């Protein structure tokens, strides 16, 4: 058991270091491509839109205004509203039992896109 622990821990850190070093230098993915002239939204501005009727959410670095969609969302408001005004990629990818949203949801999400999340001031 001790040997299993040592080998597993060593392999884990090796793989984490590999993913970190490659992922850090790799250009960020944006399969859909950002719309021309898309605005950048700082985290502080995102945080100001954290109410059910004024709900912005950042998913994979893209900010969406979901205020009008929220009443149509199938989940209970208590599960979705806490993510308003926040980076919600992990919640989006693990909505229930650890499963991600469907491709249909991904497509729907793009219609609410309003900008890119940035740590810098606009």
């Amino acid at each position, binding site marked *: *058991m*001790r040997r*299993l*622990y040592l080998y*597993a*821990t060593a392999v*884990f850190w090796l*793989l*984490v270091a590999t*993913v*970190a070093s*490659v*992922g*850090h230098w*790799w*250009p*960020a*993915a944006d399969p859909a491509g950002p719309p021309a002239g898309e605005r950048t939204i700082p*985290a502080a501005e995102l945080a100001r839109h954290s109410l059910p009727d004024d709900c912005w959410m950042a998913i*994979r670095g893209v900010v969406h205004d979901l205020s009008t969609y929220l009443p149509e969302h199938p989940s209970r408001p208590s*599960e979705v509203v806490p993510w308003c005004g*926040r*980076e*919600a*990629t*992990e*919640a989006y*990818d*693990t*909505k*229930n*039992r*650890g*499963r*991600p949203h469907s491709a249909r949801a991904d497509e729907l999400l793009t219609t609410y896109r309003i900008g890119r999340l940035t740590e810098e001031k606009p």
Partner: protein
Amino acid sequence: MLKSTLHRLPIPLLLLTAAVAPVYWALPEDLSLPRSLGIILGWAGCGLLLGSLLLMLRETWLSRWLGGLERMYQWHHRAGVVAYVMLLAHPLALAADSWPQFPAVAWQTLSPFGPGWAVRLGWLSLLLLMFGLACTFAARIPYRSWRWLHASLGIGVLLGLGHLLQLGIEEPVLPLLALATVLLGWRFIRDDAGLAARPYIVQTATPVADGVVEIALRPLAEPIAAAAGQFVLVAFLASARFRGCGQFHPYTVSSIGIDGEIRVGVKALGDCTRHLQSIEAGVPARIHGAFGSFLADRPAAPQLWLAGGIGVTPFLALLRAGPLSQPTVLVYLYRSEADAAYLPELRALAAADPLLSLHAQATGKQPPDVASLLPATRGLSGSECYLCGPPAMVAAVRQALRWRGVTARHIHYENFDFR
């Protein structure tokens, strides 16, 4: 044979159920292979950790049902390490999902520096499990520090469940969090704080060899039920003239009196047991148990008992309980006469009981050649062999017995290793 197999089944079945049930609930559909694997590994690891928590409880009824405390602890360690490996692989598999096309997204998935407490709690949980297991495997840490460092694993489990809650998965996680809290609290309050133990007081303390003292404990309330071959967990508390150890340590019972008096043999192996060599009458203690079934259900066949050092204690308890009913050879190995606990009493018992044959031998500081100390193959035919002593000696004797044709089901042993 069937009884022995049934005896071994409950723990593997319990752990299998603990791992499979949450996976069945969360079984992924229509997802990529790495993502499905990540989800399955996460839930199976979580279930195994909860099963492992159940196996750390020290309850006599539970240990009887699950095949003994030593067996529970072996599986507690195995399940914990396997769960840890699964949980290490869980985030790597999730990151592998986007690795081929988007390595940057893979790192965003894995990175502990991203936004949100879900990933941070997951990392904190993994790091605590990593730290706790590293301490578990570090044999040189004193037991007093070791047990607190080992407890960090429990906090790691709670943080792991917090990671799931942060992901918004409340439906099964809140009951699982309640279960984990109950199991950890149960262990702490009933076992570590001693709520499940009974009050006793030290009656006498008699040196029986160099660095070995036999302590007699008188019950102050209803005594525990114990039998020869069992061990108890004892915490020696402080008195006006004695600094207590506080922690519960396992000691083999050397005698059970009709008035509920329990005697235990204590060899100076660590800080606490060295301190106990100078214990006096009147020191309060708490006893939890008894545990183990080492000498229970012995068949009527001839017996070979092999004891190394203080490992003679369970055999002595059986001999003190009354005359033997089957021919028995007791091979007692010790370093020198001064180290041989209970030797004069064993010689007197062998002289009085025609069914008992005692072979007492000083081995010196070198490991003994166990093969030369065992009876010939013919002498072992039809015998039941019971071994108690240092793990290395027990392993060597088991090997020697197998070479002489003794099958595993006729070889009985306990290691009494509780780290």
